[in-house]
């Protein structure tokens, strides 16, 4: 009997470098990174991928991916991605941004890129805080949530209510795929992967803007241990329901 070649069930993604992540223990950025690399591999787009690193905890994106990556100023990732994609439509262009980057300082660029139906894929890591700068209020901070700049909790009379970005984008005709996912259970990880794949298909099939929002644990700034932070993501889903809000793929 000749030995049969069995495909190993778990291999290291080609698009990921071997550099260890710098993220805090229990941070979900790492899981999102791995899924993104797997999807780039599966779609066979590593050699034409163009990533935009934004300003936030994931600003070192370029250390972890073996694809071309450009840094954009805080909030401007979708504009930079627009320029790259328009200049070279053959590239598979994606941004990787935080909730502050995408939905506070960069909301204009994000919404207009989506409204124009740019053939780009935007990944937004919603951890409800400004992780990198030490856990301040973000546009997705929950009412009552304590942050370093809302020490008594977010007061809706002062700061209003969280922005539900996925729901907003779902109304745009230019958006071809839009979903909110989480990665705190194995099932959700698989769903997140599929959402990412479709968000890339949105641009590869020339349908429009692809968007995936990850509800992402930030144990350090939530002042929780990694396991409790992962559980806390379930609470977030009450304000930020998971699901696919628009899919033209």
């Amino acid at each position, binding site marked *: 009997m000749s030995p049969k070649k069995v495909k190993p069930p778990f291999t290291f993604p080609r698009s990921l470098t071997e550099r260890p992540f710098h993220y805090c223990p229990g941070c979900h950025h790492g899981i999102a990174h791995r899924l993104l690399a797997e999807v780039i591999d599966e779609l066979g787009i590593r050699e034409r991928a163009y990533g935009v690193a934004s300003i936030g905890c994931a600003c070192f994106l370029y250390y972890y991916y073996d694809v071309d990556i450009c840094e954009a100023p805080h909030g401007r990732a979708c504009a930079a991605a627009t320029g790259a994609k328009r200049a070279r439509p053959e*590239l598979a262009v994606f941004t990787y941004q935080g909730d502050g980057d995408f939905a506070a300082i960069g909301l204009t660029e994000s919404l207009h890129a989506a409204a124009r139906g740019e053939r780009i894929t935007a990944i937004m890591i919603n951890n409800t805080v400004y992780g990198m700068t030490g856990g301040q209020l973000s546009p997705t901070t929950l009412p009552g949530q304590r942050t370093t700049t809302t020490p008594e909790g977010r007061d809706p009379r002062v700061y209003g209510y969280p922005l539900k970005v996925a729901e907003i984008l779902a109304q745009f005709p230019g958006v071809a795929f839009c979903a909110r996912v989480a990665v705190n259970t194995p099932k959700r990880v698989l769903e997140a992967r599929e959402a990412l794949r479709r968000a890339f298909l949105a641009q590869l099939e020339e349908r429009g803007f692809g968007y995936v929002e990850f509800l992402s644990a930030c144990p350090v700034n939530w002042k929780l241990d990694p396991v409790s932070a992962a559980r806390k993501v379930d609470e977030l889903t009450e304000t930020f329901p998971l699901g696919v809000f628009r899919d033209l793929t």
Partner: protein
Amino acid sequence: MKPVLVKGSEAIALGALEAGCRCYFGYPITPQNEIPELMARELPKRGGVFLQAESELAAVNMLLGAVSTGVRAMTSSSSPGISLMAETFSYLAALELPAVVVNVSRGGPGLGGIEASQGDYFQATRGAGHGDYHFLVLSPASVQEAYELTAKAFELSEKYRQPAMILTDALLGQMKEPLLPRRLRVREYPKDWALTGARGRPARVLKSLFLGPGELRARNELLQKKYRAMRREARAEVLYAEGAELAVCAFGSLSRIVKEAVEMARKKGYPVAFVRPITLFPFPEKPFRELSLRGVRFLVVELNCGQMVEDVKLSVCGRAEVESFALPPSDLPAPEDIYRRIRRCLRKR
């Protein structure tokens, strides 16, 4: 070849097209709308991209994305819009991207006005954004030169991997003159840094964050070395230097009026030279240094409250008297106004 009658702004757009500009991103603002409007008509015909952005902030970041892939691209705006782009200018310089930016400047500060002004000289030559960096800055004085310097800006920005700016104003931008749209040779430089997809080569990164010990210092030293190397591109128009006692200096469209005043003075027998910096960064120090060593004094005429005069002072290093004739934006001076000032200046001795 027949000359065409076009505005300075249109000449800039034509110069960019001649240089092979593939993408234009911008947001409307007076007095430079002729540039995006011409690009919106012409670029799609040539397989290029025209995109009106939602703001100057978006426009300049689209420019960043486009040039990062190695294509020739530009944006244009006027003073307030240029201010809005400042943060990204710093990134463009830090990432060493050959982006071309046009400022058809207007009066400030604030909303100011839409008349000709040179109030953005500091903003253009000192960088506008944060950190130690410079743009390469070219300033045309005629419609023909606007065409040629714009093409040159594309070439130099690639040669030095360096953002370049055309600084002009409402006067030249709106003024019509005959333009000879002659073919220009615009050199290409290897783009072994461009993000085109990691096919058959290692992945490339364009970043400006340097946290390792000494890394940022090394990075800054590298940029400064480049800025020093760029000095060889310094250019100026120098006239009537022979036997001059006073050199009258101006840049851009105002230099046309100043040149006329200098010629009036010379006709009356006054020993006056004319110096017009064409590159504002690098500043053409050499003619200033040489004239100052011969004991020539300087009168610097500007449509602002006195900005370029500082660079003239730095160039002459205290060796010569430097007087500022600062004309804050509102009305343009007549050649006679400047002529009178020249006479006064000479009589002081």
